[in-house]
């Protein structure tokens, strides 16, 4: 028989983990955000954040995160839909998931090669008589590589929700006179919206704080909250300001999580259970 104390005992590692790796770092960040360069307590960091420089930064971060999420969704939804229609869908899904196991840095470097001045893309453009152009260090290459990297994280939740969809619901919709488009907008999309939300969460939030891809692919062309934090900590050594940006980043993330949070209607919501 399990008593309350033994249950609490099993939970100890969990609590230790949470305190050490979640609560403590956040508390530390919040703590540091109240100090200036010379270690005096101050609220200036917060005031600074609301100056045009940082607000612009925030806006640009959101804009890029939005672009990345938008294009990822645009590609992932139809792909996930087609996947559910294929014969060996689990195999195809695996093929799409596998690249996400490869180290992010490796993939990013690969793109530096591909997009570089002497890379295959430029070689290909040459065939058509086009001049070699700098593809790296542009907004385009940044969004492109980010979309590539995030696609599996969007496909997976959408695929799962589509796969759970009861196919006779589509028949029922058609039966009641709905065109393919109406069936999509009135039945398929509402019933897979949780998958879409989960996908948006999994893409939008990390893209807000991207910095490595930003640095390597976009150079200094794109400055986001992620690169700003990196710069404050590593270059300017202004831990206070870096922490302040991080605090805001965390707040934004929480807000996004709440917005895209799941309205839980239980297992029935996907329609497959009777």
């Amino acid at each position: 028989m399990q008593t309350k104390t033994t249950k609490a005992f099993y939970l100890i590692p969990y609590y230790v983990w949470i305190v050490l790796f979640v609560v403590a770092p956040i508390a530390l960040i919040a703590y540091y955000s109240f100090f200036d360069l010379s270690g005096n307590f101050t609220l200036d960091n917060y005031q600074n954040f609301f100056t045009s420089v940082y607000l612009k930064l925030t806006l640009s971060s959101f804009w890029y995160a939005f672009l990345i999420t938008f294009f990822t969704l645009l590609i992932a939804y139809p792909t996930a839909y087609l996947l559910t229609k294929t014969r060996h869908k689990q195999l195809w899904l695996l093929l799409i998931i596998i690249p996400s196991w490869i180290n992010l840095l490796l993939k990013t470097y690969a793109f530096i090669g591909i997009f570089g001045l002497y890379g295959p893309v430029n070689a290909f453009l040459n065939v058509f008589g086009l001049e070699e152009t700098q593809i790296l260090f542009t907004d385009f290459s940044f969004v492109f590589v980010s979309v590539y990297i995030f696609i599996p994280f969007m496909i997976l939740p959408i695929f799962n929700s589509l796969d759970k969809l009861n196919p006779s619901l589509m028949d029922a919709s058609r039966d009641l006179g709905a065109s393919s488009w109406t069936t999509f907008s009135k039945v398929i999309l509402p019933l897979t919206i949780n998958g879409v939300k989960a996908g948006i969460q999994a893409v939008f939030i990390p893209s807000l704080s991207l910095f490595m891809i930003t640095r390597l692919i976009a150079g200094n062309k794109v400055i986001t909250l992620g690169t700003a934090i990196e710069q404050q900590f590593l270059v300017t050594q202004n831990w206070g300001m870096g922490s302040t940006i991080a605090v805001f980043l965390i707040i934004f993330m929480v807000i996004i999580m709440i917005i895209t949070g799941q309205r839980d209607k239980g297992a029935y919501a996907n329609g497959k259970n009777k």
Partner: protein
Amino acid sequence: MSDNTIIRFENVTKSYDAETTVLKNINLELERGKFYTLLGPSGCGKTTILRLIAGFMQPTSGSIYFNGKLINNVPANERQVNTVFQDYALFPHLNVFENVAFGLRIKKLGKKVIEQKVIEALKFVNLVGYEKREIAEMSGGQRQRVAIARAIVNDPEIILLDEPLSALDLKLRSEMQYELRELQQRLGKTFIFVTHDQEEALAMSDEIFVLNEGEIEQSGTPMDIYDEPINRYVADFIGESNIVSGTMVADFRVKIGDKEFECVDQGLNPNEKVDIVIRPEDLEITAVDKGKMKVKVDTQLFRGVHYELSTYDDEGNEWLVHSTKKADVGASIGLDFDPEAIHVMRLNETEEEFDKRLESYGEDAYAN
């Protein structure tokens, strides 16, 4: 083909994969405004026929006509057909009202009209007051009724019902049977009803199609099928029967075991081997010396309306008897029956040959 034909299948076959043919050369003609039932065991192709009519898939070969027009390639949303799905297929993200209103909204009807029609449909299925409920909060039987309401509210030419009453309790079920039949007659629409409950089929239909492994074994009115099953399969499926092998000695004379009985069948070859059906309710218990047959009572069950006796004759054939009279288990009793109670079925007779033979008997034999 008469003017009244609404659906016609011409040599329709359907296979999902290369190995198996689910429907084998189906030919049928359905008239406007009638109640049809597809009856058959699980997996015989009932749902497949409905899906072909609804337009969720195309036949592998053959043609389907609707009002005389070939509709093989007409998509489901352009067909004047609505379906009550076997698994209900209600939209889980919409409440009861919105589920029923789904088709009406697509037709872009006015708000008032929609509301009035939905309430009327819900009234029919006894679900007034449940408009705001989520589907997840409805019981199986209630969901089934929402599905019925969602189909009838669109006022289609044909309503397909795939086992729409299977989840209801006995009382509600027979109530809905009456009401569906009544609704069908009031609307004058064509209903195609699927069931594997033969009593339900007999009670509701104008015409029944008995299916077996993707083929139509027999079609006809409930009376025809019950009284004159074409073969062992139909006789067995359509109700409890005693089916034994026998020999046609001459016209009107049939031999079971070593006893000869009078019957009403004729035109068969002398000494032709046949199957013989006698319904349990056509057998009457009498004294041993008065009966045409002598049997021994093996078991007796009280079934409410009647007793069901399992009895055996001297040759070991089992005879089920439905009787309002009680008998003693282990006792010998006599069984009496009319010549009309004996139904003779030729082996491997096609439906066409069968119908021709029945016609040749003339009407007088069936006057009673």
